[in-house]
């Protein structure tokens, strides 16, 4: 392709975008004073911007295509190879352990707080990863299980004075029950029908919490949820923050451990088989209903536990924390990170939760950048940041 053609294409793109953004970027009407503000400088900006961006865009797309052809086979990225090398495993784990232990002491309480929230989303992402990444069931109402966990701790504590450590497994079990409750009727549904029913389920849970005042105290929520205790010792604000941080870290480690074991277990392989081909796996003797329900129940358990920790961390919950938007964000962490891959989901969750937090400096441009990042990431890395590497078995004679 010649430079002239390139130039022509960019000019077309530039004109097109100037046309496209004309009413919204250029004209601003004031319906009260009946005046129009013509902002022509915006048009110039869009024109020049799209001229250069379209060049960059085509260049990157071309590069992506070439790259795709070249190393289809050797497509493992640097990080993936790093993860597979056994010799880096031990020092890697040691370094990460050291950083997490020291983190709350090096950084301020604010940073620790943000990190704790991000880690809660790591647990959520890993939990959803069981349902979506492994079993291939698209769930759009995952926040419902999160809500079940959070409310079970808050309500049990309010009515019966149940402590954090007892509520943690109870929250998980209750969420699992809800998972089965949801999973049972939708066993026959596939793909997007499943997605929309789970979306509905999530909304039902939220709306019930919002409207049923006698049960959940409605939109004003539940206050004064106690922070986790440490053998009955009174702790200062700062110590508790750090303590909660460590609890979440332990929960993350536990989650990783369990999922790693699950992935290569009988159930895990059954999930993957079911995801790839339902009929073939049924023919191989996999009980479809049981396997799917297990995925729902196990996925929900983690959300429930994360919910309990969330309630204990914020000490205040209301239905506004469990909207469809939360479900969508959790889904994004899984897909953006790399479906099925543990390291990927962790990276995805940290990126998605920390990015908007640290982008506060961008001020009003925060969310628009976030949207653009999602699109660009998907276009240039459709498999996620760290793609899952399937275990391959070689048949040796």
């Amino acid at each position, binding site marked *: 392709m010649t430079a002239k053609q390139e130039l022509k294409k960019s000019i077309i793109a530039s004109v*097109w975008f100037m*046309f*496209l*953004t004309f*009413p*919204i*970027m250029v*004209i*601003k*009407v004031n*319906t009260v004073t*009946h005046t*129009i503000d013509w902002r022509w400088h*915006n048009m110039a900006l869009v024109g020049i911007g799209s001229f250069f961006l379209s060049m960059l865009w085509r260049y990157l*797309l071309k590069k*992506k295509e070439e790259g795709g052809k070249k190393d289809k086979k050797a497509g493992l990225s640097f990080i993936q190879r790093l993860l597979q090398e056994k010799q880096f495993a031990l020092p890697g784990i040691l370094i990460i352990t050291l950083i997490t232990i020291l983190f709350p002491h090096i950084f301020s309480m604010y940073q620790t707080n943000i990190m704790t929230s991000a880690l809660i989303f790591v647990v959520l992402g890993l939990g959803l990863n069981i349902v*979506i990444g492994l079993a291939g069931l*698209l769930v759009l109402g995952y926040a419902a299980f999160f809500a079940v966990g959070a409310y079970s701790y808050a309500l049990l504590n309010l009515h019966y004075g149940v402590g954090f450590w007892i509520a943690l497994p109870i929250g998980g079990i209750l969420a699992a029950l809800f998972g089965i409750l949801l999973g049972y*009727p*939708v066993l*026959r*549904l*596939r793909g*997007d*029908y499943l997605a*929309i*029913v789970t*979306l*509905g*389920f999530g*909304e*039902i849970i939220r*709306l*019930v919490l919002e*409207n049923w005042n006698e049960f959940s105290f409605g939109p004003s929520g539940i206050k004064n949820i106690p922070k986790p205790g440490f053998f009955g010792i009174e702790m200062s604000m700062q110590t508790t923050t750090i303590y909660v941080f460590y609890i979440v870290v332990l929960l993350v480690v536990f989650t990783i451990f369990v999922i790693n074991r699950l992935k290569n277990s009988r159930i895990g392989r059954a999930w993957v088989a079911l995801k790839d*081909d*339902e*009929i*073939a796996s049924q023919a191989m003797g996999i009980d479809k209903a049981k396997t799917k329900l297990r995925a729902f129940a196990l996925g929900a358990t983690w959300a429930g536990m994360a919910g309990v920790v969330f309630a204990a961390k914020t000490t205040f919950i209301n239905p506004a924390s469990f909207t*469809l938007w939360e479900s969508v964000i959790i*889904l*994004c962490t899984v*897909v*953006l990170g790399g*479906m099925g891959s543990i390291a990927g989901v962790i990276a995805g969750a940290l990126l998605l939760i920390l990015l908007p937090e640290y982008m506060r400096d961008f001020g*009003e*441009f925060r*969310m*628009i950048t*976030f*949207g*653009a*990042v*999602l*699109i660009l990431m*998907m*276009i240039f890395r*459709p*498999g*996620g940041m760290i793609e899952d590497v399937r275990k391959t078995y070689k048949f040796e004679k």
Partner: protein
Amino acid sequence: MDFEYFTQLFFGGLTRGSIYALIALGYTMVYGIIELINFAHGEIYMIGAFTGLIVSTVLTMMGMPTLAVVVLAGMAAIIYSCAYGYTMEKIAYKPLRNAPRLSVLISAIGMSLFLQNYVLLAQTSDFLPFPSLVPEFEFWEPYSHILTSPELMILSTTVVVMILLTILIKFTRIGKAMRATSQDKMMAALLGINVDQVISATFVVGSATAAIGGVLIASHIGQINFYMGFIAGIKAFVAAVLGGIGSIPGAVLGALVLGWTESFFTGYISSDYEDVFAFIFLVVILIFRPSGILGRSQIQKV
């Protein structure tokens, strides 16, 4: 039961259902062809409403007669929505044609966020008053409080759009190409159909109906803001699934059923649990008909 009350709820539900239908059509058409839940479709509806407002205000200030303003603003809204739909497909979905389906979904979510915030930044976060494009007119006097003139306008426009769309899909060249592509993309391509063009056309047509819905509802409730597309989009999506996603008559039927469900539930029971009921209804329908009311049941192949 009071018959007048019933008819009012009936027509209220019908109006609401018509709006859902106009948005749901875009969802279902796009889904029928590339199996993508276009999360950003609600934003197209919002952009249509915004363009309509901006153009109509500018034209009114220039002193155009009302009829000309309505026609021109409506046309501008449709043209711009189509342009946005087209561009959106080219940027966010086309490069992902062979990617995993969930990646496209995330890209759509990103697009939705981007467009919302684009309008927020370029225009305003406030609610803006939207002029009544349809002048209030008196008709059929003793019954006009049952069905107001804007509601009548919405209903008749929806009917016209449906008829036009049916003609487009059934009898035109591009309509036939769309049907062929949705049945088998590979086969359609082999038969000489330009699949990329068909997909673009689908986005354009879907965006046009959404824009019509956006302008109609904005002029009915009298205000718009950048967030209006999100909830309407979700509801329309539910309607499309209820009717059987991918099926055009299904989307209309699903939308009307959803509109009536909400309206009657609010009217006879309580609006507190309006949405809860709508979703429970959806779940029940899908349990008995897993592919929606009019959806083709998917044949599983080994």
